[in-house]
């Protein structure tokens, strides 16, 4: 039952996020606001309860599966964007290579020197 209680907490924080998004007209999703709220709450409490821990782990493990239903849709719009796929490929593949390289470079540049190869 303990992970069920943890799940209840997660859903509670999600709803809290939803309420905050609506109240404050935030442009961010309720999940992210709920996550920040839960992080603050855990900081205030100073520890993670066993219940929340056991509910979070399996959910994080299946994150990739949860976006699959949306992702699969791309295979069914191939014809609708017939002339654009080469552009999309060029934009995404080298584009992502550049952005990964830039982020890596920026991060290494700003890292404190002493423990950079921990």
């Amino acid at each position: 039952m303990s992970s069920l209680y943890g799940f209840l907490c997660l859903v509670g924080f999600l709803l809290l996020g939803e309420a905050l998004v609506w109240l404050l007209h935030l442009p961010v999703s309720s999940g992210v606001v709920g996550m920040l709220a839960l992080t603050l709450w855990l900081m205030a409490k100073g520890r993670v309860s066993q219940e929340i821990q056991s509910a979070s782990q399996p959910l994080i493990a299946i994150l990739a599966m949860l976006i699959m239903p949306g992702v699969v849709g791309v295979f069914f719009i191939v014809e609708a964007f017939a002339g654009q796929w080469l552009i999309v490929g060029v934009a995404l593949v080298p584009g992502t290579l550049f952005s990964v390289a830039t982020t890596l470079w920026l991060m290494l540049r700003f890292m404190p020197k002493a423990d950079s190869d921990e």
Partner: protein
Amino acid sequence: MNEGLIGLRALLLETPMLAIFLTLAAYLAGARLFVRLGKPSWCPAVLIAAMLLAATLALTGVDYDDYRAGAGWLMLLLGPATVALAVPLYQQLPRIRELWLPVLCTLPPAAMLAALYSVGLAWLLGATPEVLASLAPKSVTAPIAMGITEQLGGVIPLMMGGLLITGVMATAFVGLLSRWLDIRDERVLGFVLGVNGHVIGTVRAFEYGATAGAFASLGMSLTGIFSALFLPLAWRLVGL
């Protein structure tokens, strides 16, 4: 397909169970095939699973909209799963606090450039405004990206496809560059994976370790928040 089978298919599609079954089955088959292929970094489990699922839908003649309506029940869990990322984030807080300066200096340019490189390339090649708007949130986690795409006038299935390719490419390039440049710092690799590869990068980061996973969660949520504020503004300035 004969009449009986079509009737059976319609019956099974009446509840979301068939869609949920197909998604779980494709995901587990994809994960198993991924291990069987020797865990290639250029083809993560989620890509194999998505292709298996698309092939299954095409072969059985299940309409994507029917599937999507059922599998939407599964996607609802994306909300609590995002909230759950608070746990690794909290547990790694002391290590994140040590690095607040590099994180804050890296994030805004990195998140801006992630969108700019791809939108710029697509624009140079003559993409339609619809495609540009669908590519802009390519490094943003799915629930936030959907909101952004709608606001910019993009197409959600195209955006989700862009998300898949970006996530796959980000994991592949981080693996390649880290080996090539001999970078082993989990904090750096995790953050880069989260900023560029959203959920798919974060899942990969948890395979490196808990620290990488926490930094990826941090990078993913910061990129999401920053892009949600920045992209609509940039769109208005450019006048698209």
